[in-house]
């Protein structure tokens, strides 16, 4: 009788264990045994995966690029800037230095799900020895605006939270649109980010989503396209000569997010080095149509970044 009960218990337990996870196919075509309610998530790309997940109200226990005490290894701290939270307070730990994941540290976090991007495909097999690895496309051309965050919400079973974020966002959109000096319909925008050269920001970020949701459309660039070598991706190089001729209705300029100073003065200094005298002949600047934004706050593919953009646009509109 004892053995019968034990056998029955084992059968039930195995069934329950199977019910706690389900197979999904990730964006790289891999079959992943996804836990039904992941509670210990580790992310391999903090700005593009960690921030969206945290904004959805989920916890992450580990992030690639964090120290063991939860502080950022990099000069920038996306969690602090975008979400106003502290990684240490959230209990987020590191998994080794950038470029060298420590499998022991990763295993010690006891993750039940690891989420990475397409560039982490080479690590997926070895990381699968610790926990299921889900690879999400985060930089491919089909990724726009909030699509990453929405798909993560669907994947992790918190679509209702994403819907709530969108409702608040749309409410703020209407408020800011009402405060704009001119109706945005038919107006153009362009966003540039300065690395060692000037780059046009494409549609893979909160800032672009916000400005387009307001009603602006992207200004056409003369000579842009694959043949001209402008390429595709988050930031597409733009020549200094082209920059000087830009004349969208609103021009957004940002400094690289690895810059220590991402304020207006620092942005202007960088432009002076790349395009000397730009402030004398760049029409949007002369006519007060330039918006200087903090790239760290506005470039993640999240509703939070879009709302930071709306805050900045509202402040600019109010000042005019």
């Amino acid at each position, binding site marked *: 009788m004892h053995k019968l009960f034990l056998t029955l218990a084992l059968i039930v337990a195995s069934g329950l264990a199977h019910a706690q996870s389900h197979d999904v196919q990730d964006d790289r075509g891999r079959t992943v045994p996804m836990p039904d309610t992941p509670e210990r998530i580790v992310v391999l790309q903090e700005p593009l995966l960690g921030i969206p997940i945290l904004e959805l109200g989920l916890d992450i226990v580990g992030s690639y690029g964090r*120290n063991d005490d939860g502080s950022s290894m990099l000069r920038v701290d996306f969690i602090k800037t975008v979400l106003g939270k502290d990684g240490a307070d959230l209990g987020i730990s590191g998994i080794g230095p950038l470029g*060298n994941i420590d499998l*022991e540290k990763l295993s010690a976090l006891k993750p039940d799900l690891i989420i990475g991007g*397409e560039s982490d495909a080479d690590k997926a097999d070895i990381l699968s020895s610790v926990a299921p690895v889900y690879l999400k496309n985060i930089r491919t051309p089909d990724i726009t605006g909030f699509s990453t965050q929405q798909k993560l919400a669907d994947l992790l079973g918190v679509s209702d939270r994403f819907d709530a974020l969108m409702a608040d966002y749309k409410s703020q959109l209407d408020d800011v649109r009402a405060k704009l000096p001119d109706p945005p319909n038919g107006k153009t925008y362009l966003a540039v980010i300065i690395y060692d050269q000037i780059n046009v920001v494409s549609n893979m970020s909160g800032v672009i989503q916000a400005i387009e949701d307001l009603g602006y459309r992207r200004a056409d660039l003369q000579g842009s396209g694959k043949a001209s070598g402008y390429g595709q991706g988050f930031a597409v190089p733009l020549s200094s000569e082209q920059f000087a001729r830009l004349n969208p209705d609103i021009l957004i300029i940002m400094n690289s997010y690895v810059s220590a100073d991402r304020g207006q003065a620092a942005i202007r200094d960088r432009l002076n080095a790349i395009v000397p005298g730009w402030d004398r002949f760049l029409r949007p600047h002369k006519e007060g149509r330039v918006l200087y934004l903090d790239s760290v706050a506005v470039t993640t593919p999240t509703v939070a970044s879009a709302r930071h953009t709306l805050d900045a646009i509202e402040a600019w509109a109010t000042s005019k």
Partner: protein
Amino acid sequence: MRLTTGLHGYVVLRFSSGLEIRLHNLICAMILMMVAVVGGVALLTTGSTDSTFSDLVGLFDGDAVSGDVAFAIADVRLPRILMGFMAGWCVALTGAMLQSLAQNPLADPGLLGLSQGSLVVIMLVLVLFPGLPLIFTPLAGFAGGLAVAVLLMVLVGRHHSGGLGILLMGIAVETTLSSVTSILILYAPPEQSHAISSWLAGSLFHSDWSAVGSFAAWFVISIPAILVIGRKLRSLDLGDHMALALGEAVHITKPVILIVAVLLTAAATAAVGPLVFLGVMAPHLAWFISPAKGRARLFLAAMTGGFLVVAADGLTRLGSDQVALPTGLAIMMIGAPIFIISLRLRTISQARTG
């Protein structure tokens, strides 16, 4: 088996079959093995997860050990140590073979472009045929390395296959192939580009038990290679003419040795990426430890190479929490100072005796 003095004046261990092992070489080999074993055991018990020697013993005895410790020792550290040793062994062995083959103390699979040739073909296969099973990767590397070896022979010609000529030509070929590598990285899809870039610096990150198992076959090939080729190299070290005079079929032996060298290089490159300069350093360090010839030289060089990579991996794992240290760089950090010191001491010693 008895201890006696050979005709050359060195104390040897002579076996009834006639085999002689110089006692100094034997002692050095045993010391190297002990250092490698002790170092390996120390590294098995050191890492992010706290573990002790008794945990290690308990794990192998089947005692209850915590899951974290068992994972750290058995699934992370041990495969890395084994893979690092085997890869270092193969690369150093290849360097020792090539130095004898080319009659050039700077010959190395990297400097001669063999590693780069393997690398380029492996990268082309990864980019153009991403779905190909990984078992074919070493074969692709072998094809690339062999193509470079043949190209070098054609460019340099039979009569200049030793000395500076082959080295210079190898550097030229290596530089050209490096530019091809750079183009591949630049224009490959971003996810492959990232993977290739991190692998180019040498990495033991992907060393799991299946990778160790796959590489072990190539490692096993190196053992009979040492026994057979080591004997041949004693003749080849005297030069082609002397080797011919001693009855060595140089026109067969040299291509065979080159093929074995390319095989081992390709396998190591496919497994851990290029380990630059190890093939030059390890044989010279082994020579410094014990000036051996033939099989003993190959064995000592291989042991030294294996030890260097294991030590480098220890530095990589236990180094800074902030900065990632690629395995290739760690090898240079450990080996280069010792290499420089050994060369300097050798120069001083030669000046005194000269």
